C-alpha cells in the first residue's frame, strides 16, 4: 500500500515539475506595467509604474525580444529560435507557438489592423499573421529587415544591413516604395503631426552615427538631420515630447516634435531602449543591468534588473 502511495506521490511531483515551465506568475488585467526584456539572462521582468517588481518570468529559451499583442498577450521570439511563443499575461500560460524559422529580428503588432508582422534576417522577409497566429502573407525585402513602424495602413521597415527603407501596404503586404537611408539604421518613429518619419542608427564601419535622419512621410525625401550625441537607436514619444536614447554616449534626449532639443541627460550604461509609463520615462542600461525612472529630466529611481535589459514594453490600462 505504501509503495502505491509513494508512486503516486512521485508521479504527482513529476507532473508538477513538468508543468512548472509552462506557467509563470500571472499579471492582473488591471495592472499597468513596464516590462524589461533581458537577453543575457533570458527573462521578462514586470514593474508597476512606481518601479516595483510585479513578476519575473525566467526562460530556458534564448529569447531576444518580445511584443505585446493587445492587452493580455505577449509574443516572445529569438533570433536563433525557429519558433515564437505566445503567453497569456493574466494566466502566465503559453497559448500557442508560431513556426517562424530561424532569424527573427523583430515582431511588430499593429493594433488597428490586428496583425502581427515578423521580420526575418535569414529569409530577408517580413511575414504577416492575424492576431490568432495564422500566417497571412510573406514579402521578401532587402538585407536584414528589422525595425518597424506603421501609419495609415503602411508598414515602414528599416533594412538594417542595407541602404533602403521598405514601405509596405499592410493590407496585402505589397511593396509600395523604397527610400534611401543610411546603413546600420535602427530605430524608427513616425510623427504624423509633422508628416515625418525619424530614423536612428549605429553608424557605418568605425564611424558612429551622430544624427537622426528625418524623412518626409509621403515622399521619403530627407528633410532634416537632427544632431544628437552618438548612436540614437531607441525612440519613444507621448503627445508632444520625443525621447531618444543615444547608446554610444549613454545619453537621453528630449525633443519637441520638430526636433528641437528640450533637455538631455546622461543615463545608464549603453542604453538600448526607452519607454514612457504614465508621466515617467524609463531607460534600460544594457551594460549596467539597471532600469532608470526619470521625471522632468531627473532620475527618480534606479533598479537592478536581470542581466542585459534590451527592450522595454509598456501596458497602460
Amino acid at each position: 500500500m505504501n509503495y502505491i502511495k509513494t508512486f503516486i506521490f512521485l508521479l504527482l511531483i513529476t507532473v508538477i515539475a513538468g508543468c512548472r515551465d509552462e506557467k509563470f506568475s500571472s499579471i492582473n488585467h488591471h495592472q499597468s506595467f513596464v516590462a524589461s526584456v533581458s537577453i543575457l539572462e533570458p527573462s521578462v521582468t514586470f514593474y508597476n509604474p512606481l518601479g516595483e517588481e510585479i513578476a519575473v518570468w525566467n526562460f530556458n529559451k534564448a529569447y531576444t525580444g518580445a511584443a505585446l499583442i493587445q492587452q493580455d498577450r505577449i509574443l516572445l521570439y529569438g533570433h536563433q529560435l525557429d519558433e515564437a511563443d505566445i503567453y497569456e499575461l493574466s494566466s502566465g500560460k503559453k497559448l500557442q507557438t508560431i513556426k517562424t524559422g530561424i532569424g527573427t529580428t523583430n515582431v511588430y503588432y499593429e493594433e488597428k489592423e490586428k496583425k502581427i508582422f515578423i521580420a526575418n534576417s535569414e529569409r530577408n522577409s517580413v511575414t504577416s499573421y492575424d492576431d490568432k497566429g495564422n500566417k497571412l502573407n510573406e514579402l521578401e525585402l532587402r538585407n536584414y529587415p528589422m525595425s518597424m513602424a506603421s501609419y495609415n495602413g503602411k508598414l515602414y521597415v528599416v533594412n538594417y544591413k542595407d541602404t533602403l527603407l521598405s514601405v509596405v501596404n499592410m493590407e496585402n503586404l505589397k511593396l509600395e516604395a523604397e527610400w534611401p537611408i543610411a546603413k546600420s539604421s535602427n530605430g524608427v518613429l513616425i510623427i504624423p503631426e509633422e508628416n515625418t518619419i525619424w530614423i536612428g542608427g549605429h553608424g557605418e564601419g568605425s564611424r558612429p552615427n551622430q544624427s537622426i535622419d528625418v524623412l518626409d512621410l509621403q515622399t521619403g525625401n530627407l528633410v532634416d538631420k537632427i544632431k544628437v550625441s552618438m548612436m540614437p537607436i531607441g525612440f519613444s514619444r507621448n503627445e508632444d515630447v520625443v525621447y531618444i536614447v543615444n547608446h554610444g554616449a549613454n545619453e537621453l534626449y528630449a525633443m519637441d516634435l520638430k526636433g528641437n532639443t528640450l533637455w538631455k541627460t546622461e543615463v545608464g550604461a549603453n542604453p538600448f531602449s526607452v519607454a514612457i509609463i504614465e508621466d515617467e520615462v524609463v531607460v534600460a542600461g544594457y551594460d549596467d543591468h539597471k532600469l532608470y525612472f526619470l521625471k522632468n529630466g531627473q532620475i527618480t529611481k534606479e533598479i537592478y534588473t536581470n542581466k542585459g535589459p534590451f527592450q522595454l514594453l509598456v501596458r497602460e490600462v
Partner: protein
Amino acid sequence: MKKIFAKIWGLIVLFIVVTIVFMYVLTDYLYEQLYVEDTEASMIEVGDKLQTKYKGGKVTDALIAEIEDYNTYSNLDVFAVRNPRELSACVPFEIDYDTLIGPNERQHLLQGESVTKIGYEERFQRQIISVIFPLVDQNRLEGIIYIYYPLAKITELANEEVLLLIGSAIIFSCILAAFVYQGIKHILRPLKELQSAVEKMSNGEYSTRVNVSSKDEMGKLSEAFNEMAAAIEREDDQQKTFLATVSHELRTPISYVKGYGEAIQKNYIEGKEREQAMNLIVREAERMERLTNELLELVRGSNENTAVEFYPIVLSETVREAIRLLKNQADSKDIHFVTSFDEQIIVEGNEEKLKQIFINVIENAIRYSNNDSKISILTKMMKDNAVIEITDQGIGIPDKDLPHITERFYRVKKARSRADGGSGLGLSIVEQLVKQHKGNLTIQSEVGKGTKVTINIPMMEEL
C-alpha cells in the same frame, strides 16, 4: 663489424642531434615565453599608470592626446579609443565590422578588468601581444587604453642569433660525432682483431693469438680466445704427433714383414735363417695386432658415448687374476711378487677394464724392472676409496718425463722404442680407464730406485 659499428655510431649521433634540437627548441620556447611575460608585465605597469590619468566622465581629446604622448617615450604602442563602434557597444545588434574588442572582452572590461591578447590581430595585420585597459565610469565603458607590442619583434630578437645557433649546433654535432667515431673505433678494435683472428683460425692458422689490452669484457673475451686457440693448437699438434707415431710404429713392422717375406718368397734365405725370419714375421705381425688392438681400445675409451657396464667387484680377486696372467712373464725375469690384499674391498667397476688397468701397470713394472727383483702390490681402504699401490725396483722415470708419461706414444727413451716391447699406449689406456671408474692415477718415481703407481677408485657405496 662495419654494420655494428655503423649502428652504434648512428644511434649515438642520432641521440646527440635529437638532444641538441630539443634543447634548442626548449630554450627558444622558454626565451619567448619569458620575453612575452616580461613584455606583458611592463605593459600592465604602463597601463596601470596611464589609467590613473582618467578621472571619470567622457574621454576627452586632451586625455587621448596625453595617453598617446606616451608613445614618444616608449617602445610600446599605446593609444586610447572612445569610439563605441570599436568597443562593441552595438552588440547584441549584429555588427558587420571588425571591432577592436569583441563582446566577451567588453564584458571583462566592464568589470574593470584588463584583457590580455596574444595572437594575430586583423587590425594590425600581424602577431601582437596586447593589453587592454578599461576607462570605466559608473559602469559605462567610456573608452579603453590599448597597448600592444608586435610579437614579430620578440621572435625576431630570438631569431637574430638563430643562424649562429644552428651553425654552432651543427659544428658541435660534427665534432661530437667525430669523437664518438674515434671512441667506438677504439672500443671495438679488439673485437675487430678477434674477428680476423677467428677467420685465421678457421683457415687453419692455429698459432694465431690476439693482444689482450684491457681487463674489461673485451679483454676477457680476448683471453678466452687465446686459451681456446692454445688448446686447439695443442690438440692439433697431438693429433699430428699421434698420426705420425702411429704410422711410424706400423711402418717398421710392415717393412720387416715385407722384407723377410720377399726374401723367403724369392728363396734368398734358407734353413735356419729362414726359420728365424718366419719367427720374426710372426712376432712383428703380433706386434701390429697388439698395436691396433690397443689403438682400438683407446678410441673406444675416448668415445664417451660407449656405455660401460659397472657392477660390484671384489678387488683382490681381479688383482690376483692379473698377477696370474703375468706370472710367466715375471718368472722369465726371475721377478717375484709381494702382495698384501684387503679382501673386504668391493668396488663398482667393469671387471675386464679393471683387469686391463692392472695388467698394463704390472706389465710395465715387469718390463722396466731388473732381473731378480721384486714387485710389491697392495690394496687398502682409505676413506671411501680403494687404493691400489704397485711398486717396482726398476729403472725409474726421470722427473722431466713424469708429467708426460701418460701421453700417447710417449716414451722416456725414444730410441728404446721397440726393444722393450712397449707400444707407448699402455699408460694412456690406464689413465683413460681409471677415469672411466671415476678414480685417479698418480705416479711417483726416482731414477734407479723404482716407480710407485697409485690408483684410487671409489668404493661401492654401502646401501
